[in-house]
Structure formats: C-alpha cells, structure tokens
C-alpha cells in the first residue's frame, strides 16, 4: 500500500488506490475513455502487490470475470463508462440476484450512445438503478473530489461486502480526470464478507438479511445460480413463494438500510429558503455558487448527495421540509430532480445541462437569483 501522505492524483488514480486499500485483489476490464487510466493503474499496481489483473475481450466478459473471482473469494472490481456500463447490465442483475459483492466504477461521459467520448456527463444515474431487468437493488455513491474517488471507492467495497450487493461508484469525467491534493492515511475501516461454515449461503434468519458467503474450493459445495433459488442455491423456478421471498429479501436488505448507507452533507441550510441539491462534480460548482450568493445576502444552501442509491429519501425529505424551493443542477435532463420531487412537497426546479461540459457556476447563480425573485 502507499505510504501515508499527500499525493497529487487524478480521480482515476485515486479510485484505483482506494480499491487496493480496501483489499481489492482482482480487476478485469476493457478499455474505454474516460476510465482507462484506472485500469492501467490497476494493471501496474496489482502486479506489484500480487493480485490478479486481466484485460478481457469486452465489458460483458469483464464483469462476468469479476463475479467469478468474487465467488472464488476475491474482492473484485471493474471500471468502465457509458457504453461498457450498458453492456454490463445483465451481469449486474446477476450479481444482485446471487448477492455477489463487487464494485463497478462508471466514469460517466456525455451520452447517449458513443456521444462525446472525452466529455463529461451524468446520464447514467437511472441506468445504475434500473439498468438490468427485474426488481433488485444496488448501492451507488457519487464522489465530488479526487479525495472522494479514493474514500468512496473504499466505502463501495465495504458496502458491497457488508450487504453482498454490487456497489457502484458513479463518477464523472470531470472528477475522474481532475488532479487534486489528496490525503492517504492508514486509518480506515475495512469490512469483509461474513463467513460461517455449513450455513446456508442464500438465506438467513439474521436481522440484516445478509447471509454468509463462502468461497469456491472451501469444501462448502456451493451451488450458485442466477435462476430463482432456495436458501442453499437449488433452482426453484416455479415456486411462487420462494421467488417472492428471495426478491423481497434482496431488495429489503438494502432499502431497510437507507439511512445507514445514505450519506449527505449540508452547507448553509440552517436558515436557507432555497436549497440546491447536487452530487458529483456539480456539487462542487454548487457550493461555489452558494458561497457567492451568500455574500450577496441570498438565503441559499446546499444539500450534497454522496449516496445516490438507495436514494437518500430521509435527508432529502428533511431538507425539503425546511425550504421553499429546490434547484437540482445536473449533467442530464433531470434524472435526480425527478427523485427529489418524490420526496418533497416544495417546488423543485431541474437545471439540466447536456452539452458535454460541466455546469458552470454562472448557470447556478443565475438560476438561484431568478428563483429568489
């Protein structure tokens, strides 16, 4: 591991280092702008510290290899961007249904389709939540700085291990390519999947709803399947109760923990009449804009979402209860604004920009001044 200290890292570098610090020892990926540097760093560093790196033939193979390695006992990850994230969706559903801990970093770029490969966007928020078929949950975190590319990658691994779910780091090109001073310290909490010899790997009476997870080769004679299965992994493809119970559990084990998983940060909200709700790079711009307007005497504040899925309904609801109106600037056409609307009664104004650029400070200050009038 890197010695403690201050580093000048890009977001992609920082995420790779965070993964290693969290215990990641397997990486499979396929090149794509703007996430490739993350893969290149993992290739070099896993070689150095004795992990496994493999460049696969495509993103479907990459996420599949990650899931295979996770069941062989690894903390495993892959990273990609929009087009690759689309290809991974079926397997992400597999990971959710088989309760496989793994981490997917999506460095969002300007979509749809190939779009503008080197430009920024945040259009994958809903895809991260709903991209695979059926009812399932994932965890998705949104870093706003290079420091958080590191910290939230560690957290993504911890949450993946703790809840046995695929966890995603929904980064954006601006944060991934930004270079910043970051502090790396040894003091961090690390979670590992729980293990219990002889326990059923797909069902539990425990309150958290998360069964222990053995690895292949440990003599547990695991049966893993993406078909509906009972507590022991036996296919049960036409028992309605088994299906209902399994689908409920893989959803509830995450949703019940919304408050534990959800992290938000508020600034200047105490006396605010207008709130900005933002995430990722746009939250940086938002804080800057809010500080500018505070100097002008406007009562504006910021609620920053560090967790996007499960959606931090409680925190958003609380913020919505205290202000008259909410502005949601984002690099898409209102994906999170729609979620905010579900949680609050006040006016919610989306500020969606999809030109491949970050939302500039002026756009936010202008909108807030107009709303204040």
């Amino acid at each position, binding site marked *: 591991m890197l010695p403690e200290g201050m580093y*000048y890292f890009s977001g992609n570098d920082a995420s790779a280092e965070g993964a290693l610090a969290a215990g990641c020892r397997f990486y499979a990926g396929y090149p794509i702008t703007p996430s490739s540097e993350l893969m290149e760093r993992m290739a070099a560093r896993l070689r150095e510290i004795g992990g496994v790196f493999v460049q696969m033939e495509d993103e479907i193979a990459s996420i599949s290899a990650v899931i295979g390695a996770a069941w062989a006992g690894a903390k495993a990850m892959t990273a990609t961007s929009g087009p690759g994230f689309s290809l991974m969706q079926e397997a992400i559903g597999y990971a959710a249904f088989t309760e496989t801990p793994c981490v997917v970093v999506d460095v969002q770029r300007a979509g749809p389709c190939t779009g503008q490969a080197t430009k920024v966007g945040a259009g994958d928020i809903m895809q991260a939540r709903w991209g695979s078929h059926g009812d399932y949950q994932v965890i998705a975190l949104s870093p706003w700085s290079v420091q958080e590319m590191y910290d939230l990658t560690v957290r993504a691994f911890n949450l993946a291990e703790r809840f046995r779910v695929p966890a995603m780091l929904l980064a954006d090109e601006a944060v991934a390519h930004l270079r*910043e001073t970051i502090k790396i310290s040894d003091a961090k909490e690390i979670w590992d999947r729980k293990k219990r010899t002889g326990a059923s790997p797909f069902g539990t009476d425990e309150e958290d709803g998360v069964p222990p997870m053995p690895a292949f080769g440990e003599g547990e004679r695991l049966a893993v399947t993406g078909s509906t299965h009972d507590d022991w992994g036996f296919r049960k493809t036409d028992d309605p109760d088994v299906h209902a119970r399994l689908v409920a559990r893989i959803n509830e084990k995450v949703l019940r923990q919304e408050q534990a998983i959800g992290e938000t940060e508020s600034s200047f909200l105490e006396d605010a009449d207008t709130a900005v709700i933002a995430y990722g790079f746009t939250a*940086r*711009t938002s804080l800057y804009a809010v500080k500018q307007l505070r100097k002008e005497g406007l009562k504006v504040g910021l609620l920053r979402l560090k967790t996007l899925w499960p959606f931090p309904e409680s925190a958003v609801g609380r913020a919505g209860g205290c202000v008259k109106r909410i502005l949601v600037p984002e690099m898409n056409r209102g994906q999170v604004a729609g979620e905010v609307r579900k949680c609050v009664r006040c006016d919610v104004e989306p500020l969606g920009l999809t030109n491949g650029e970050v939302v500039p400070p002026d756009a936010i200050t202008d909108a807030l001044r107009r709303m204040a009038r």
Partner: protein
Amino acid sequence: MPGITQVRWCGFGGQGVVLAGLLLGQAGVLQGRYVAGSNSYGAQARGSGCKSEVVFSDGPIDFPHLTTADILVTMSQAAYDQYCTDVVPGGLIVYDAPHVTPRKGPDARQVGIPATDAALNKLRNKQAANIVLLGALVEMTSLVSPSAVERAIGQHGGGRFLKPNLEAFNTGREMGRQVHG
C-alpha cells in the same frame, strides 16, 4: 476563495502541455499547497488544441476549474488568440517567442521566452520547450519553488528523461532570470 492563483497553460497536443501542468501542480502539492489540475484536449492525441489548468490555493478549493487566469502560458498562436483576453487585469502572459506574436490589448504583463528555439538550438530537443517555459515561469513568479519542481520532475519525468529535463529546466530558469533581473 482567498490566496488563489489560476494558471492556464495551452498549446497543441504533443507539445507537453499536460506534463507541464502536472509538474507545476505536483510541485505545489510538494510545497503543501492545495492544488486542482485539469486538462482538456481533442479526441486525437497529437496536433489538436490542448490545455492544462492548475488552481493553487491556501485552503480547500471549491470550484476546481479556472474561472479566469492569473497566469497564461501559450505555446501556439491559436492558443494565444483564444485565451489572451481571459486574463485578470495585471496578470501575466508568457508566450513562446517568436513563434507566438503577442497583440496589444490584454491588460497584462506579456513576456516572450524563446523556449522552442532554445530547446532546438541549445538542447537539441524540440520536445523540451515545455520544461524550458516551466523554468522561466518559476523564476518570474513565486508560484512554486525550483526545488519543488525538480522533485516533481524526479517523480513524473524521471528515468532516462531526468537529466535532459533538469537541463531544460535550468536553461529556462536562466532565461527567466534575465527577464526578471
């Protein structure tokens, strides 16, 4: 944001613009400053417009991109023409003379450094113009210390490039001192 300095470095892809920004930022970090750096370039690796921006601050940086430039370094005419007006009054523009022709207009101190020529004629390495400019800039401003840049070069431009890079850096410093002194 008090104590903020914003530097924009631009030119063509292949001129080492990104490396120059990286070294500048790394040197700042080594001196304990808060630094945020970002690059932008066209889809192709060589020949299209390229820009590296670095924000230095004494505290955490809210908005990490440039809002305007305190210092502009230009390695091509196109870059100069595009960005020379977006410099704060009383700021500094450094350009690669004589390949870039400055205009009247910008309310800034404009300094020509024959970096490419020195790289070609003295160092026999056209690729070194970026490091020459970096040396000159370090002497003309108190942005970062020369020793911090040397350590940064050791980290990012080391190996077989260490010696030529340090040579280019010293050549640039010499040129910067002449302008300054």
